[in-house]
C-alpha cells in the first residue's frame, strides 16, 4: 500500500467524509447548527473516552514502558515554540507576541486530530501502543506555558506583571477543561484497569468511532466558518500551517522510533507533534497574552493545519512512519 492508497482510504472514512460534509454545510449556509451543549457533550465524551482507554492501556503496559516516550513527547512539545518563534518573528515578520502565541499552538496538540489518527490506524488494522493517549495528555500544556513565557518576555515593558500572568497561564494550561478531562480520565482508567474497561466498554468503546464522525461534522462547520479569515493571515501563515506540521511530524516519528515505539505508536507521536491546539491554547492565549491577535493563531491552527492534518496529514505521517522504520531497521 502506498501513499495514494492511504489517502484514498482516509478520505473515504466516515469521519473525514462527515468533516467534508460539515465544510459544505457552512459553505452553502445550511441552517444546520450544533448548539453549544451538544458540542460540549461530544467533546467531553471524546476526551473522557480517549483518556480512559489510555489509562487502562498504561496500567496494562506498566509505567515502565510509558515514561520514556512520554517524557520525549513533553520535551518535544515544550521545545517547538522555541524554534517556531524565530521563524514566525523574522521570516514571517509577525509581532513578537503573535510569534509566541502561534508557536504555543503548534507545540500544543489537538485531541481530535489524535483521535482521528487512532481511528485511521484502527481502520487499517495497524497495531499501535494504546497508551499513546498518555502522550496526548502530557503534551497539551508544556508548549502553552513556554509560549506564554516567551510572549511575556518579548513585551517586558508592557502590561500586567509577569507572575500574575504566569499564574493565569499555569491554571489554564493545567486545569483547563481538556487537559483536566484527559489527565483525570487517564488516572481513572489507570486505577480501574481492565476490569473497569469491561464494565464500560459499551459506552467508551462501542460507539466511539461513530461519535467522532458526528463530531467532525461539527468541526467541519467550525473550521469552514473561518475560511474568510484566510485572506487576513497572509500567505506566509498558510505555508507555515502546512509545512511546519510535516517537519514536526517527521521529527517526532524519528524520535518515537528512538524511544522504542512501534510504527503505529511513532506515527501517533508524529500526529501529536504535527497537530496544533485550537481549544486549550486559544483559551490560554486570550487570557494570558490578550495582546496577541486571535485571528492569526485560530485561523492557522483551525482552518489550515487541522483540515490538512486530518485529510492528507494522517496518511502522510503513516507512510513516513512505515518508510522510516524500514530504513532504520
Amino acid at each position, binding site marked *: 500500500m502506498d501513499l495514494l492508497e492511504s489517502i484514498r482510504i482516509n478520505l473515504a472514512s466516515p469521519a473525514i467524509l462527515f468533516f467534508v460534509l460539515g465544510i459544505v454545510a457552512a459553505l452553502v449556509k445550511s441552517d444546520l447548527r450544533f448548539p453549544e451543549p451538544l*458540542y460540549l457533550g461530544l467533546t467531553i465524551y471524546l476526551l473522557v473516552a480517549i483518556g480512559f482507554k489510555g489509562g487502562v492501556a498504561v496500567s496494562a503496559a506498566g509505567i515502565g514502558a510509558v515514561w520514556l516516550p512520554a517524557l520525549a513527547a513533553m520535551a518535544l512539545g515544550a521545545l517547538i515554540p522555541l524554534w517556531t518563534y524565530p521563524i514566525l518573528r523574522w521570516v514571517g515578520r509577525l509581532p513578537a507576541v503573535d510569534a509566541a502565541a502561534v508557536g504555543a499552538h503548534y507545540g500544543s496538540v489537538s485531541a481530535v486530530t489524535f483521535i482521528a489518527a487512532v481511528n485511521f490506524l484502527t481502520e487499517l488494522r495497524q497495531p499501535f501502543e494504546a497508551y499513546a493517549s498518555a502522550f496526548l495528555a502530557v503534551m497539551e500544556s508544556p508548549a502553552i506555558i513556554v509560549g506564554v513565557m516567551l510572549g511575556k518576555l518579548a513585551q517586558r515593558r508592557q502590561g500586567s506583571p509577569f507572575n500574575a500572568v504566569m499564574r493565569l497561564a499555569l491554571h489554564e494550561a493545567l486545569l483547563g477543561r481538556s487537559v483536566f478531562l484527559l489527565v483525570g480520565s487517564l488516572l481513572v482508567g489507570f486505577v480501574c484497569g481492565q476490569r473497569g474497561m469491561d464494565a464500560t466498554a459499551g459506552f467508551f468503546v462501542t460507539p466511539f468511532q461513530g461519535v467522532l464522525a458526528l463530531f467532525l461534522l461539527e468541526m467541519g462547520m467550525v473550521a469552514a466558518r473561518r475560511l474568510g479569515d484566510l485572506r487576513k493571515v497572509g500567505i506566509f501563515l498558510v505555508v507555515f500551517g502546512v509545512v511546519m506540521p510535516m517537519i514536526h511530524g517527521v521529527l517526532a516519528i524519528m524520535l518515537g522510533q528512538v524511544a522504542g515505539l512501534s510504527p503505529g505508536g511513532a506515527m501517533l507521536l508524529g500526529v501529536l507533534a504535527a497537530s496544533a491546539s485550537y481549544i486549550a491554547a486559544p483559551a490560554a492565549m486570550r487570557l494570558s497574552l490578550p495582546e496577541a491577535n486571535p485571528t492569526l493563531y485560530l485561523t492557522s491552527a483551525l482552518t489550515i493545519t487541522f483540515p490538512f492534518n486530518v485529510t492528507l496529514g494522517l496518511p502522510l505521517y503513516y507512510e513516513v512512519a512505515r518508510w522510516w522504520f524500514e530504513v532504520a531497521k
Partner: protein
Amino acid sequence: MKSPAGGLKWQSEDTMNTHPMRLVTIVGEALARERLKRLLAEEGAQGYTLFAVEGAGAWGSRVADIEEFANIQVEVIVTAAVAERLLARLQRDFFPHFAMIAYETDVRVLRQEKF
C-alpha cells in the same frame, strides 16, 4: 416638586415601592467570564445574572457553539457610584483586550437594600 415635565410622569421614579438603580449590561467573550465575576465582586456588586448569547460585532461573529469562542451577557444591578467605577474599569482593563461592549440603563428596583 419632583417632575416639572408632566409628560414624563409615566416614568414614575416616585412609585411607592421602587427605587432608582443602575443596570449595567456587559456583552462579550465567554472566556472573560471568571475575570468579569472577579471584577464585579471587587467593585461591590451584590449579585449578577449571566446569559449565554450569540452575537456579532466589531470583532466578528460569535456563534454559540464552541464555548471558547462564545459570548456571554452579564447584567448587574448596582448603585450609580458602583456603576461608574465598574464602567471605568471595564473601559480600562477589559476593552483593550476582549471583544466586549457595556452600557447602563436606569431601572427601578424593589428592595433597594439588596443591591
